């Protein structure tokens, strides 16, 4: 009995102590001058080498060049995401940003509750009504969405063109018409990547086949490098030379397979060259930093508006990496061809599908 009381006492003490936990960053309440921005990260937080780090970069850039005061909250696993957003909204922040589609419901709810606070959600999932039209988010909530299919189109074209080369960088390859794709969880968000990739492959190589596989049907599929490696090995063994992954850290297994077989892979979201130098052809990058910076800049300039904001090739919200690291892997002629495709997409001459053909 005494033990139990002690335990309850200890838990109570911890509980009370937790009430005093404050988010990191500036502690003074927001003032009327300047711009106060609150950012709530997705699980993983900073150091995920992807979304959260991108949002952090964009916010820090806004802090430097726009003088915004930025506060970050890193929720743990579970339901304190909403609490983080609510805390920032209640303090009267000028802009509250949720990083990741996981915040969709919480942001939509809070935007209605706090009509005077501006909200932005990276990758916010916009639901469709019965007629299939997107339901516009509240006027103070911006959905920062990316045209992943456009960036995927370009890396698809690059992968297909490169698969027919006999030599990439310093390694020799047997030319092939098979190109690979490894997705994480089998959901529409990832189908966008596949659809764009397929369209890009088909555009430059009608006779090519895309081998597309998914790591699973649960969120675990984004964190299963073991499965990623096996999927990639079987694709490489079937003659594929280049695999594009859109699968979170499952893709690290794809890179491992590329190392083991001496083949090539395409990274996603951020520049992933460092994960397997020499084997990462390029990465399809999403400009989360640019989108977050843009939202903050608009809030400062007074031009912030809610609704869906798309970041595609034109807005430089998506793209592919071409720099000193991978220049040796991509012949100039191919680079020129892909750049021409980019111009056509930006000009509207090529329309990239965002959904798979069924």
């Amino acid at each position, binding site marked *: 009995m005494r033990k139990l009381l002690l335990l309850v006492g200890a838990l109570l003490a911890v509980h009370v102590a937790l009430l005093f936990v404050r988010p990191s960053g500036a502690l003074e309440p927001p003032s009327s001058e300047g711009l106060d921005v609150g950012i709530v990260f997705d699980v*993983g*937080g*900073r*150091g*995920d*080498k*992807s979304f*959260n780090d991108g949002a952090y970069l964009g916010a820090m850039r806004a802090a430097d060049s726009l003088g915004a005061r930025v506060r970050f909250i890193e929720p*743990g*696993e579970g339901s304190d995401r909403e609490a983080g957003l609510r805390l920032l909204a209640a303090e009267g922040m000028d802009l509250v940003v949720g990083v990741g589609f996981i915040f969709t419901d919480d942001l939509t709810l809070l935007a209605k509750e706090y009509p005077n606070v501006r909200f932005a959600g990276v990758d916010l999932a916009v639901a469709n009504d019965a007629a299939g039209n997107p339901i516009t988010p509240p006027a103070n909530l911006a959905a920062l969405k990316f045209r992943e299919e456009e960036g995927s189109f370009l890396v698809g074209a690059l992968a297909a063109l490169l698969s027919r080369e006999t030599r990439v960088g310093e*390694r020799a390859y047997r030319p092939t018409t098979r190109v690979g794709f490894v997705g994480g969880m*089998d959901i529409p968000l990832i189908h966008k990547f596949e659809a764009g990739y397929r369209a890009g492959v088909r555009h430059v190589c009608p006779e090519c086949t895309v*081998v*597309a*596989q*998914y790591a*699973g*049907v*649960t969120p*675990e*599929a984004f*964190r*299963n*490098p*073991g*499965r990623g*490696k*096996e*999927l990639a*090995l*079987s*694709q*490489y*063994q*079937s003659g594929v030379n280049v695999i594009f992954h859109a699968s979170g*850290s499952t893709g*690290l*297994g794809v890179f*491992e397979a590329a*190392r*083991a*077989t*001496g*083949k090539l892979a395409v990274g996603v979201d951020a520049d992933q060259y460092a994960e397997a130098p020499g084997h990462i052809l390029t990465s399809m990058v999403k400009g989360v930093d640019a989108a977050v910076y843009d939202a903050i800049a608009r809030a400062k300039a007074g031009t912030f508006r809610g609704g869906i904001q798309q970041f595609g090739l034109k807005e430089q919200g998506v793209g592919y990496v071409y720099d000193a690291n991978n220049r040796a892997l991509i012949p100039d002629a191919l680079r020129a061809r892909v750049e021409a495709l980019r111009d056509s997409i930006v000009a509207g001459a090529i329309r990239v599908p965002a959904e798979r053909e069924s």
Partner: protein
Amino acid sequence: MIVVAFLAQVLRIVVPYLLAASGGVLSERAGIVALTLEGFMLTGAFTATLGSYYAGSPWVGLLAGIAGGVALALLLALATVRYKADQVVAGIALNLLAIGGTRFFLRYAFDSSSNSPRVPGFGGDGGGAVGAAATLAASAQNPLVWIGILTVPVVAWLLYRTPFGLRVRAAGEKPEAARSLGVPVARVRVLAVAGAGALAGLAGTYLALDQHQFTDGMTAGRGFIALAAVIFGRWDPKRVAFACVLFAAAETFQIQLQGAQLIPSQFVEMIPYVLTIVALAGVVGRSAAPAALGKAE
């Protein structure tokens, strides 16, 4: 060639299942529910990465992986054997601890919430060879593959041919009777759980060293599939090994189909769990769990 590729892939996939499920048999036959296999694996994967990173040797990683699994297993033993906590609750709690703990120390050690730096593993990189035979040869150079295969007969021998195994089975079937005959039930259970931690820790080690890094949550439910294999295999080491091979073959089959949607992938992912329910329903012969499974002494 396709057959070789298939077998090589089944082998790579089955090794962590064999290790973890053999550990699960040991634990459950002693009467302790093996819900924490997932946590043992994840912890083992992380400590193995640490060991391999700081010592620069996969063998140190292997020892560290065992140590990590055993450490968490001893916590489970402390809670369930010493303090007689509910095994299911304690098991789930320790799984959560493993997820949060590895994430915390990943950030602490490597300043990343995603993955560790590259660490040394066993065997070569495959030397850039693509063929199925080459990957099979690479597996053959990995001592963990051999340990995984040998674990099955060793655990079977331990359970059925040694005094310790008899005590384990007694502790899992009728702990009161065992104690009245002078068997130190608590100590036997602690040892069996520690053994499960060591084997599942090795399973995690295999995953981490095969990837040459730790990634957050990298076990991705394999511990639960191993537990399903334990139940489907009716707590017998050899039948459990067969179940592991069956599950691995189903996975391989799906991978080798290369996206051809002959069977929906949802269905293939269900197989281990459906078979487990089928086994529990008694469709494939009597399925009797150790009588004292989940009960305090």
